[in-house]
């Protein structure tokens, strides 16, 4: 058996892949959180619930309407985007003049209500969701077995993150978004409808969460608690990457997923806390986060 640092390479690679997949979800979720925090100054605690809803929309569509994974990959983010925009218009909008703490409390409350409603309706045992036919099976790479679907999750997440980053850094709309993040009043005084930009951004963030939820459905089971399980880690990712930094969230997401995976190999006892230890160290040494700008 081939070994690396005394560990079987199969196990090592398996954990690295698992870390990369977790990292892909951390990256997509923290990207949405960072976008929302940047423009709305709201810490969107409902993000995990929106991720869970994405998975449930896919499962419901499949179970009750026979709609397949691929169509759900478009429909669920659309549904979550609309849900997010309604939420922003009806509730969040009322809080912008108040302390950001109120936004956190409101979205936290919403997350509890949504999660509770889904638990009531579907229990906590979780619903299985089949891997789509096209991506069933895997490839034997010699040193490890690579399931096709999991590889696709990593690639698609990377593409989504890269596309979002390019859109923000290189397009006119992205420039508007960056400018409105800095000084919304002035951008509005130039004739830009900033409230619509804000609604759209929250909707896009919720849609990203929904998209991640659909991707997650075949990997983890579809469970009302799946959002609250992952969201705390995602918040740690955002804090480590630097609040509001898009690139920082993406790199940190993938990086921390890998670190978590490696910890499972070398010191499994610490695997569920390693991210928070890193967060504490980063906060001590660089309070604005690894990629954050100090004000």
């Amino acid at each position, binding site marked *: 058996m081939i070994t690396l640092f005394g560990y079987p390479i199969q196990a090592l690679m398996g954990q690295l892949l698992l870390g990369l997949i977790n990292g892909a979800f951390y990256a997509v979720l923290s990207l949405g959180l960072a976008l929302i925090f940047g423009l709305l100054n709201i810490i969107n605690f409902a993000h995990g619930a929106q991720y869970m809803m994405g998975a449930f929309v896919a499962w419901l569509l499949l179970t009750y309407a026979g709609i397949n994974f691929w169509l759900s990959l478009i429909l669920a983010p659309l549904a979550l985007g609309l849900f997010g925009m309604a939420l922003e218009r009806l509730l969040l909008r009322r809080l912008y003049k108040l302390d950001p703490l109120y936004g956190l409390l409101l979205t936290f409350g919403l997350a509890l209500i949504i999660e509770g409603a889904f638990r009531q309706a579907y229990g906590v045992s979780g619903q299985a969701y089949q891997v789509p036919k096209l991506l069933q099976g895997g490839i034997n790479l010699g040193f490890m077995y690579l399931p096709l679907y999991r590889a696709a999750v990593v690639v698609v997440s990377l593409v989504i993150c890269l596309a979002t980053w390019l859109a923000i850094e290189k397009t*006119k709309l992205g*420039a*508007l978004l*960056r*400018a409105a*993040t*800095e*000084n919304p*009043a*002035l*951008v*509005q*005084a*130039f*004739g*830009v*409808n*900033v409230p619509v930009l804000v609604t759209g951004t929250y909707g896009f963030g919720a849609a990203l969460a929904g998209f991640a939820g659909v991707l997650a459905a075949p990997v983890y089971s579809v469970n009302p608690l799946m959002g609250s399980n992952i969201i705390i880690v995602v918040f740690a990712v955002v804090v480590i990457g630097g609040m509001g930094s898009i690139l920082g969230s993406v790199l940190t997401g993938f990086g921390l997923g890998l670190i978590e995976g490696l910890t499972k190999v070398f010191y499994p006892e610490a695997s569920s806390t390693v991210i928070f230890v890193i967060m504490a160290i980063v906060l001590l040494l660089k309070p604005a986060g690894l990629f954050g700008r100090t004000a």
Partner: protein
Amino acid sequence: MPDSAPLLAVNDLHAWYGESHILHGMTFDVRAGEVATLLGRNGAGKTTTLKSVMGIVGRRTGSVRFEGTETSRLSSNRIARLGLAYCPEERGIFSSLNVAENLALPPAVRAGGLTLAEVHELFPRLAERADSQGTKLSGGEQQMLAIARILRTGAPLLLLDEPTEGLAPVIVQHIGSILQRLKERGFTILLVEQNFHFALGVADRHYVVENGRVVDCVPNSRASTATLQGYLGV
């Protein structure tokens, strides 16, 4: 065009920041094609007047008419779309945007704005530094950028808040010559200024502002640094 109807007519404008009442019935107008200034001490309400006209101050009452359209109930983005462009005192250059992006940011609200080539001809430094981060420019260059970016939009009325503040005399002179050229091109300018010498060089009329009210209007022909200083008691 001294007899034409005013482009901007402000009547009994009041404005508040939270509980503090800043404007106490500002009344003045700006005619098409002229340069008018608001002069006054710090805290007299000049900046608040520009912000109120632009719709940035939340609580305001009274009337602001632009080309006959009442704007005092509109949000700032709708007001800007009517044809008003604003250059804030702090310049408002975006640090996450480069110079070219800063320049391209304000959307066009009307046909007839300057083309990018014309903007670069007026401000050659902005072409040279197109890829620099906006806030890495010198103070004078940032002021040029703040003015340049609102010239592209086609808005006929420019609201400029202290464009000479903190700048070296040679740059102040340059900005003065630019305002002259903009005036020749048909722009109407409402200028907040503390630099009397500069104001005398570019303006047609001066409104003297005190405690949130216009207390006098002085045509430039009757104004001198001494008379203006007398008005303001400095």
